[in-house]
């Protein structure tokens, strides 16, 4: 799949008043246990399936984000700072509201439910 990181995650667009507005085109993806995240341009993808396929390749967890061997789950943080499971929104809506994607292990989430908290992934700042 021809989806790659992009160095320039912002593009300029003209606003209604002909002002230059910068809109982020890439979405940061963090994974539990990984110190370095990735950035993905969601506009190049058409579905959640494609997103999962790309991320499984990038983070070398093929087959572990869905199905019987699911060990990882994806959540995203929106611009309100709230945490939501990836997949509930229609794909087009998701691309609009997602601020950052995080991949968490199912065990990690289970532990967090008992403590009532969900710490930042990999200790990276939000």
């Amino acid at each position, binding site marked *: 799949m021809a989806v790659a990181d992009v160095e320039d995650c912002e593009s300029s667009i003209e606003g209604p008043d002909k002002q230059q507005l910068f*809109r982020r085109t890439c979405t940061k993806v963090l994974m539990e246990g990984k110190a370095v995240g990735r950035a993905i341009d969601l506009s190049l993808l058409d579905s959640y399936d494609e997103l999962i396929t790309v991320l499984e390749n990038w983070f070398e967890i093929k087959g572990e984000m869905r199905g019987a061997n699911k060990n990882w789950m994806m*959540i995203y943080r*929106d*611009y*309100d*700072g*709230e*945490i*939501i*499971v990836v997949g*509930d*929104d*229609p794909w*087009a*809506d998701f691309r*609009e*509201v997602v*601020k950052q994607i995080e991949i968490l292990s199912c065990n990690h*989430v*289970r532990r*967090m*439910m*008992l403590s*009532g*908290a*969900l710490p930042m992934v990999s200790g990276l700042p939000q």
Partner: protein
Amino acid sequence: MEAIPSSIFTLTKAVSMHVGGGSWSYMSTALMAYNIRIPDTASSYQDSRDACIDLGLSLRTPFLSMYHDNQSSKVGWLQPESQYGASNAGHLMSHKKSKGEEEDDGDSEGAQSKDRCCYVKVNMDGVPYGRKIGVFEHTDYWSLALQLQAMFGKYFGSGIRLFDEASGLLLIYQSNEGGEWRSVGDCPWE
């Protein structure tokens, strides 16, 4: 996944949606473990395509001025204090404040699609992540309750069972304008 032992669950859900070209306004709702009330069939509540319902799950929806101007515009909506004990309402308020401060700012989100469907955030107390529900995919409170059960039932020992008065669950919402808690059952589905 084992059920979380708690007598009170706050199911909070926040949605921000841009409908037409109207201004943003939000209400918040919370689901608490108390009596459930399900409304009868829809009343003659004015149906406006531009208005969005608040489903009582810490739901923040934009609605027109007819909603949030004053009490008289909220036809048929009862104050939770008038239906349930003051202690219940107070407990709900205090519990909500400790968990839902972030949902009371009423600020609009970032770039939003103007034609985006009404997908509402659902957060359940004790669960570190929220879900999303398509409001307009449901025809009434009952179908909503079923989906919530499918999403969150495993975290509640006896199931959410929103449509079962014996389950002890109450669907309420909080107006972001006045911060008042209202019973979702009082508001017609439309």
